[in-house]
């Protein structure tokens, strides 16, 4: 996959516009869903994911290939989303202490039912949304996007130790927020 991307980047740098179309087509869903996971809003995800491609397009001549193209594209997307989340957080002043109250339901014995339960899905989204931006980004990249610690460290420009610390703090906050489910 990496070699294919490098070839496309190389072709685009030589002036072949269609090569960038191929890259956009290949990554549009991943980048859109990444932005959606981070913002939980379709309009924002559409705007930010497209903004990420525009940024990549405009600065690809500075991309030296030290990391893979998708890591670089993820980095741009995550930075845009983090900036957006910080601006939104300032506007909303979200309370991170609020606890989600739930009915005592045994989700563990019926995961299929859990996947379809709207209330549970909304509570999970609310709980993840309440995380501070950096922790939310780390948690999303690890648990929703399935990236490795090393890849996340490269995307966010911090150490693997820092990524693990953020994951631990995020899980602790989620445990607190979802106490009704976890202790039910």
């Amino acid at each position, binding site marked *: 996959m990496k070699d294919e991307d490098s070839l496309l980047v190389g072709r685009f740098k030589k002036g072949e516009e269609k090569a960038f179309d191929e890259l956009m087509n290949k990554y549009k869903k991943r980048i859109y869903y990444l932005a959606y996971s981070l913002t939980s809003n379709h309009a924002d995800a559409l705007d930010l994911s497209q903004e990420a491609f525009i*940024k990549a397009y405009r600065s690809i001549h500075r991309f030296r290939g030290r990391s893979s193209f998708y890591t670089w594209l993820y980095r741009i997307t995550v930075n845009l989303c983090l900036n957006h989340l910080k601006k939104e957080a300032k506007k909303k002043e979200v309370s991170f202490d609020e606890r989600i109250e739930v009915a005592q339901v045994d989700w563990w014995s019926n995961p299929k039912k859990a996947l379809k339960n709207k209330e549970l*899905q909304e509570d999970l989204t609310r709980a993840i949304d309440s995380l501070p931006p950096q922790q939310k980004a780390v948690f999303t990249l690890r648990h929703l996007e399935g990236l490795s610690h090393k890849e996340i460290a490269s995307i966010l420009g911090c150490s693997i130790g820092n990524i693990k610390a953020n994951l631990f703090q995020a899980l602790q906050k989620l445990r607190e927020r979802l106490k009704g489910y976890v202790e039910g």
Partner: protein
Amino acid sequence: MISCRKVKKWMVDYLEGTLSEKEKALFEEHLSKCSQCAQEVKALVKTQRLVRLKVREEMPEGFWTHYLPRLRRRLEEKPLPRLAWRPVPALALATATALVLLVVVAISLLRTPSLNLENLPREVLVEEVMASNSELDYFIAESFEPEEIAQALIPQEMLNSLIDSNQELSL
């Protein structure tokens, strides 16, 4: 027996099953003797299982049909970058060279021996740069390290206070 602090440090690796056999044995030995840590691990395992139940709402196929044409329009609306293969007029080239020199001189002036940004956590630098400057776009490509970006964009007084506050925190 390992400490409760060590257990917290190893927690993510334990939950993800990436501890070595020896570390895992030490970790579980601690849990068998420390009910508080055992309770925390149990709750975090459940939390992790719970968040894995989150499903992603898929977009309809029609959405993707319009996604790329819309993106192409947006790309064409904005002025194109001056890419390497496009001819650059002599005056613009001279102006760009002068600007690059100016940035290089500014960066070298900002670099003082007492300013050791490598001791600062990267996320602090990244956060400060992202929060403080819209010029980040220019530096977003991987050719610049967070330390370089910070030195180019953040006033030196602010960097000094960042270093000071970070040192205070680590004491």
